[in-house]
């Protein structure tokens, strides 16, 4: 058997830059939809950010009667307690108690009540208690981490490339972050600390992808001084497209492994990554690249970067 890559061209010839307007519409719908959902539906904040108590318990005996348990929690008068089963056995229940009005002291009192209620029939497998103050701080540090990451990446790209590239990277990143947030909002996926980790991972992956494309654009800008910019960008994308497809596929394999076997704790994380994998790849081609087209990229400004230039003169112009 031959390596399957024999059947894959080392370079594609799609008219990617040519059909960019349809992609703009798609991007606009995604971004606007995400923003609208965030503004109207908001987020399903997990206790990391909203504060409150989360317990995971396993029934010692038979399958749990959720309705009965729910009414027992109702009688405790500790607010609107949410119950849901996880896993397949029907014995595992996640209990979520909202933030209590009286601060940390009331929170611990509510926890004690809940523990008292379930102490007999259940094993408590996990308890998370987040006070109001901590929750607020975690939101701020999460947002700060994402914002600082975008700024730091932009500065790096600006120094290694040109400001137009940095702008493209930032726009692509904002696109990815916004639409990922949108997914969390639209599908009401638990938004917690691991979601922030997922967003930063997506940011890292997306910028990785953008840089690969930009690297090729820069190389070609130096090599083909006369080629019109739209044609050059199109050719650059087509040249890196095989690599992009292969990498997306291998990362996809690992994300699928996480999704299938990683358990419920990693599910929001894996879903976010799955989505981010696609928007990250999409944005580096559909957002990051056209920016170069509109912002007056002048070739004589493109300096630095690749240490290899000796091949440039030897290589013939493509037919």
């Amino acid at each position: 058997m031959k390596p399957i890559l024999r059947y894959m061209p080392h370079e594609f010839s799609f008219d990617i830059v040519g059909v960019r307007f349809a992609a703009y519409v798609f991007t606009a719908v995604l971004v606007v939809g995400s923003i609208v959902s965030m503004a109207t539906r908001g987020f399903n904040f997990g206790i990391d950010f909203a504060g409150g108590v989360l317990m995971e318990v396993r029934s010692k005996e038979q399958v749990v009667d959720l309705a009965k348990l729910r009414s027992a929690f109702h009688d405790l008068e500790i607010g609107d307690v949410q119950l849901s089963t996880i896993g397949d056995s029907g014995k595992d229940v996640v209990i979520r108690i909202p933030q209590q009005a009286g601060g940390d002291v009331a929170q611990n009192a509510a926890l004690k009540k809940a523990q008292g209620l379930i102490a007999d029939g259940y094993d408590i497998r996990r308890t998370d208690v987040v006070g109001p103050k901590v929750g607020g701080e975690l939101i701020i540090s999460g947002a700060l981490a994402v914002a600082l990451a975008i700024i730091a990446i932009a500065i790096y790209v600006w120094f290694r490339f040109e400001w137009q590239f940095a702008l493209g990277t930032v726009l692509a990143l904002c696109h990815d972050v916004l639409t990922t947030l949108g997914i969390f909002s639209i599908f009401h996926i638990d938004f917690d600390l691991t979601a922030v980790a997922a967003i930063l991972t997506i940011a890292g992956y997306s910028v990785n992808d953008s840089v690969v494309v930009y690297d090729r654009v820069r190389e070609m800008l130096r090599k083909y001084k006369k080629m019109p910019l739209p044609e050059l960008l199109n050719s650059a994308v087509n040249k890196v497209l095989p690599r992009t497809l292969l990498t997306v596929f291998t990362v996809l394999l690992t994300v699928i492994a996480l999704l299938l076997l990683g358990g419920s704790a990693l599910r929001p994380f894996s879903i976010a990554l799955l989505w981010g994998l696609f928007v990250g790849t999409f944005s580096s081609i559909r957002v990051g690249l056209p920016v170069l087209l509109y912002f007056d990229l002048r070739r004589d400004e493109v300096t630095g970067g690749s240490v290899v230039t000796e091949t440039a003169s030897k290589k013939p112009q493509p037919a």
Partner: protein
Amino acid sequence: MLHFTPAKILFICAVGLMTIFFCLPNVLPANIVKAGPSWWRPMQLGLDLRGGSYLLLEVDTSAVVKEQLADLEETIRNGMRDQKISTRGLRAADSAVTVTLVNASDRAAARTEILKISTGMELENLAEDRIKVTIPEKLQRERQLAAVSQSLEIVRRRIDEFGTSEPSIQLQGRERIIVELPGVDNPERIKNLIGQTAKLNFHLVEPGAIGTDPRDLPPGTLLLPGTGEAANQSYVVRRRVEVAGERLVDAQPSFQNGMPVVSFRFDTAGGRRFGQVTTNNVGNRLAIVLDNKVISAPNIQGPIVGGSGIITGNFSVESAKDLSLLLRAGALPAPLLVIEERTVGAGLGADSIQKGASAAILGGALVIIFMVIAYHTFGLFAVVGQIFHMGTLFATLSVMGGTLTLPGIAGCVLSLGMAVDANVLIYERMREELASGKSLLNSITSGFSHAYATIIDSNLTNLISAVLLFLLGAGPVRGFAVTLSVGILTSIFSAVMVTRLQVWLWYRNGKRKELPI
């Protein structure tokens, strides 16, 4: 370009051997590992994997400031009394005490006295007869810092006395303490132990007074509630502290008439004072007050001069044990609040390990199969590079004393997919160069050299977000960030060095005419 000098090959082999060496503690039995040096250690499992409890405590520093202000007020009041300077009153607010004098002519004398008895305070004349004494911010901060470090020490003592295995107690920021208790899956009792200030004082009960309304109490007395079953009972006690708990040198749980009690011993000065009080007040009641609640108020039967005594009350065996532990460890300078708790039972931790491991195995297997199908021999080289990358990642985490958390495992699985990107970049570039008409050797060489710049750029930007995640993240997410950052660095090394070495060896050992991809 492709060529490797023997020294370089040796270097890569050395890294490989070191990797194996540093990974060994993770698979060898614990008794062999213990015999080795301390830096030769297995990777730590995070609390979310091994089970245990994480508590974030906050020192109530506003209480510290309040107490500092009350102390200052008391000092000034005593000073004015000693100097026979009459005042209309002292008012404590914010971080200052305002003294209003009866005679404005006393102001100079009052100032001198205040400066003498309370060093470092800022004095300000508000009016002819009024002085404002402010606690400078620096002194407030010093007091808060002292309170926090003292709290840390006392929490440490309490937990050590409680006796859990390998607890970790450390300061976070300026007023928080992180307590990590591996293996503890119900931290209720420890939380109770940590959360109590445990300030013990002995007060005399005001004879004959049985007031319940705080407004018609005799002057110089306090109304205090009881504890436990006697919580709705209240006691009228004299404000004055007869003997303070700081004078205790030991406390132990014991039994009296079959009931659990706490026996205690004072230091010399405390014992003498206790002897005086009990001698002078035979027949009166002595209230034993813990955190402003009366544990019990026994009758003083006769003088107690030996410097030791017992506390009776409605104790269970456990609560007698806990109280004596608290008294031995000392009182907290300020209340502590549990503001975050994360507890994972050992069962869930084991489940998480099992799930993480099976996801890693499946992910790894899929990537290996795909790479070999896609690139044949060169795919195999990439797989060897990946194994090298995983090995160095584990070795680095082990020797750094890193902690593996569930998100960290997810990071490892993910990096399996992302790290082959470097190989893909290199190989695709080779294919391209070959297609443009270059010789095999030239294609391989420029495939590597062109891909390097891209690999470095794309990985460094990735590293930036991983480092920020580490700096700003919390708990298990930090574990993820560490895994991700170290993983990025080791993957660059293995893609750039290990893959290239294999390709070079492949090219040298045979008359290669075409790329096997």
